[in-house]
């Protein structure tokens, strides 16, 4: 008799998990694909995120922010799988960008006076330092508050603000540098 009751509660738990957690799958996939290098790892990361979430679903309080909870798990997964080599490569690109390099291999060659294409914008975001990119994505695309983003990334709110500031300014500089390069060519 206890087995049928156990089975029933298991079914209910799974149903609740689908309702509360699985509905955020696309958001998580999109964010993971943009933040992780290489982007093909995104699916593995999201799957591991959901497996961890399922395992600890008992600790989640229904009615609280499930999306933020899932993002927090996902960032922990990303952190634990982070590749140091790819981080160094990204940092080197950012340093060149911040120096105002004119090399077309490191700078998006489009004119900010023209309408920016979506894929160009996404490519520009890819050039940002991983920490800045994560904050920018969580705040602008996923529309988390500063407090929520701080909880997900396990950093102070002040750090969220400064990284976001630098991310936005970094993108602006990137577009401006390209515009100057283009004008010089003309």
């Amino acid at each position, binding site marked *: 008799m206890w087995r049928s009751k156990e089975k029933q509660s298991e079914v209910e738990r799974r149903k609740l998990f689908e309702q509360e957690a699985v509905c955020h799958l696309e958001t998580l996939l999109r964010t993971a694909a943009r933040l992780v290098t290489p982007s093909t790892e995104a699916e593995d990361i999201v799957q591991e995120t959901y497996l961890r979430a*399922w395992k600890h679903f008992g600790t989640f309080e229904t009615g609280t922010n499930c999306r933020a909870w899932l993002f927090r798990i996902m960032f922990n997964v990303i952190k634990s799988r982070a590749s140091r080599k790819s981080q160094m490569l990204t940092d080197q690109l950012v340093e060149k960008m911040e120096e105002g390099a004119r090399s077309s291999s490191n700078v998006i060659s489009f004119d900010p006076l023209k309408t920016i294409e979506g894929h160009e914008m996404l490519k520009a*975001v890819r050039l940002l330092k991983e920490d800045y990119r994560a904050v920018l994505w969580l705040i602008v695309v996923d529309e988390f508050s500063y407090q929520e983003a701080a909880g997900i990334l396990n950093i102070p709110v002040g750090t969220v603000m400064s990284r976001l500031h630098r991310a936005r300014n970094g993108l602006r500089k990137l577009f401006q540098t390209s515009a100057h390069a283009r004008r010089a060519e003309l």
Partner: protein
Amino acid sequence: MYCEEAKGLIQLYLDGELDARSTFGIQKHLESCVVCLHLLNSYNKQDQLLREAAREEMIDSSRMRARILAATTRKAKWYQRRPYWLMPVLKSTAAALIVILALAIFLLRGNLFPYVNQQVYAAAASDHIRCVTGASRGKSIEMSELRGFVTRFGKMQEIPSLAAFGYGTPHGILCKIKGEQFLHLVFNRPEGNPLSIYIRPRTSELLVLSPTSLKLEGYRLFSTSMAGIDILVVSSLDETRAPAIAQAIAQQVNR
């Protein structure tokens, strides 16, 4: 509000993170400052473009969804399917068993493994051999002091006598067996074959609590305990009265 302050707050204003007072302040500033307004608009446009670009991306999550749902419906292992009450019951039972086991060991400690300290008896037999052959490692006690040692080690008023068994007055030695100090009384008789009595207050489980008889290395050993005093008799094999001798000594212990 000046531009320098406004520029620091523009992004927070854009993200809706300012309090009402600061929001009002920056709105008033933007009404009259073209530069800051342009900065706000560029951030806003940049954000909108990013948001639209991100959401325009087609994400096929159907395969991923199927994988996740399959993973969560896999049969759990037996210990994951256990009823909720099982673990508390198992834990309580384990705790009770541990308490019972500890109690049993405490109560039966002397009798649980009667021969576990056979080495002690063998050591006593070896010490007896050394003493009777004049190779004792212990410290001899002066006769004038022996009574005091007998009182201290054996709670006896007088030096025990085994005259009824044909043994003379003993001489005393302080010796150590397995790290424990004993009062060693050596009794001689005209026929030879001295007898040793080892006495000490029972402060550890060195000797078995209950009366124990052994034959080791060609000697007979008998140990008993009375009123917190351990008594060990080491004699030759022909001395069959070792239990009685131990009993006679024990009767002289003050309770």
